[in-house]
């Protein structure tokens, strides 16, 4: 994801103020099944990644903040299964309102599974972008590399991300 949430602020003031003022409920999302046993981190480019308890696997997606700012998502170009990627690599893209926005790997990892259901129902990313369960808007499941674990430590936790997006909104 590009810094799109910020990008689109000027274009969609109404949508933006809704995002900025909405109460943050990241820690208490009703649909998440793994929030209790996984740690979630965020990138400045608005991707999230859950790390499993054994730190070997993860699930990634784009943040609720970004999904709202992007507008109606009409297509999700999924990553290639089996691909090994470095943090920051473009692994897929989402299209909304004529914009193809890259999805970047939040950490170094290997893509093991992609959420095929999004190809048919891309709007799921708008509805439940941070849901990593079946039927959720998660993008891919990954195997975490040693480097990936180090990358993970540099990402923001939900509190820091919340502050980060709030600060972005104040510009």
């Amino acid at each position, binding site marked *: *994801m*590009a*810094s*799109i949430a*910020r*990008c*689109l*602020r*000027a*274009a969609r003031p109404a949508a933006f103020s809704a995002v900025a003022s909405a109460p943050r409920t990241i820690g208490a999302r009703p649909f998440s099944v793994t929030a209790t046993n996984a740690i979630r981190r965020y990138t400045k*480019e608005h991707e999230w990644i859950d790390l499993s308890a054994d730190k070997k696997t993860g699930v990634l997606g784009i943040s609720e903040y970004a999904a709202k700012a992007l507008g109606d998502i*009409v*297509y999700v*170009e999924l990553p290639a299964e089996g691909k090994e990627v470095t943090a*920051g690599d*473009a692994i897929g*893209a989402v*299209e*909304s*309102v*004529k*914009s*193809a*926005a*890259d999805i*970047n790997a939040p950490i170094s990892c290997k893509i093991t599974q992609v959420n095929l259901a999004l*190809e*048919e129902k891309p709007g799921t990313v708008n509805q439940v972008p941070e849901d990593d369960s079946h039927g959720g808007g998660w993008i891919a499941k990954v195997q975490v590399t040693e480097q990936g674990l180090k990358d993970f430590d540099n990402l923001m936790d939900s509190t820091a991300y919340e502050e980060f997006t709030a600060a972005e909104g104040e*510009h």
Partner: protein
Amino acid sequence: MAGPSRLAAITRRISSSPYQSHSHPKIVTWPAQTRPYTQYLSRPLQIYRSTSTDPYLNLSIEHHLLQRSHPDSTILFLYTNRPSVVIGRNQNPWLEVNLHLLRQGLPPSAPLDQQQTPSADTHGGGAHIKIKTIPVSLVRRRSGGGTVFHDAGNTNWSVICPPAVFDRDRHAEMVVRALRRLGVDGVRVNGRHDIVMDVDAAVGRGYGGEEEGKQTFKVSGSAYKLTRTRSLHHGTCLLRSENLGRVSGLLRSPAEGFIKARGVESVRSPIRNVGVGGEEFADAVIGEFRRMYGGEGAGDRVVVCEEEALMMEDVVKGLRELTSPDWIFGQTPQFTFSTHPTEDDPRERPRIEHSLPYGLQAHFTVRHGDIQSAAVSGLEYQDSVDEASQNEILSKALVNQHIHHIKDWRTTLKQASPSPVDVDDAGEWLNHIFGIQTPGVKGDRSLAETTIEMIAQTKVAQYLSQNSD
């Protein structure tokens, strides 16, 4: 043959190009063998004008600017392409484009104006028959959005900037101001971030969205690409295209009623020219861009020519990707094709031509150009056989075929069938639907092959092949 002397000759010709007008204080010329346009990539404000009319190359130069320019820089890039149909990143060429009309090319209605397109001299050395039509290139761009038509009467503008200052209307508004300065009335940015022109109904022609005696025509379409660090907004602008009457036909596929596609479908709009010249338009857009980002005279105006762009490894890499059938056709999101209404696609089907064998039913699921599942029935088997099992074997044999590599559906069906079958009518109809030329003197050619052939005839491809090992 294509040694340094040829390059020097080309460079000399470019340095006297009309783009380097006398009215601008800083004119950049390109002596042979110096550093190319890339030396400007770290400047805060950059303005480039491509002299190439190759759509694949111009998009590759643009992509190179997007990826390699300083993250804080702001760039304007202007280019004009030879006739092309450009589909969005996540679109379906079988659904969006009339591939038969595309291949037929455009009649050279205005031979003098069209002399500027490289296609005219590309074919100059070949047979005379080819001069009769002007080829139309099929291009898939990297940005989102719908399908557009380009030609010499259309100029494309592109702004690359940090994402923080990006919004979907900002640069369309810039172009609107440029048009107004040129005396074009009634232009504005609409809710789809396109530039439209409101014309008095008495003056306008065609069927626009009529409002209080006004008709609205689209004159410029927008698309965007967002990377981790950069944002790109590019748009067309119909200035003096002589092919407006042909655009609608080119963008209407015979497969429309039979294909249901994932991804992005185009929104049709009535179009019109704004009636200004290409260089006039470029100057006005550059003026507005400078007013926005640095004042009069800010930012050198840099001319980019084909030969120097092709010296950049990244540009060539991007070019190879954009010209490959795997990108043009293989990037297509999953779609289903069915001759009859299905649960998934219950639309009533267009009346099928009478030549189709009675009872023929065909259903394919195609993912990234590969047939994933197929069900064909109703073909007439010549021997008395168990039709159901024959159909099943035939359908199974179609799975995993790449649809853009099929040369002739008659052959494909015949080879898939376990026993002799009459496939001529069904095959011809499928050829028609999927844009395959019914094989003529040159033999069977798939869409991929036709595309490769067309690209191989372009100046850029010839230059590349002459200069590679």
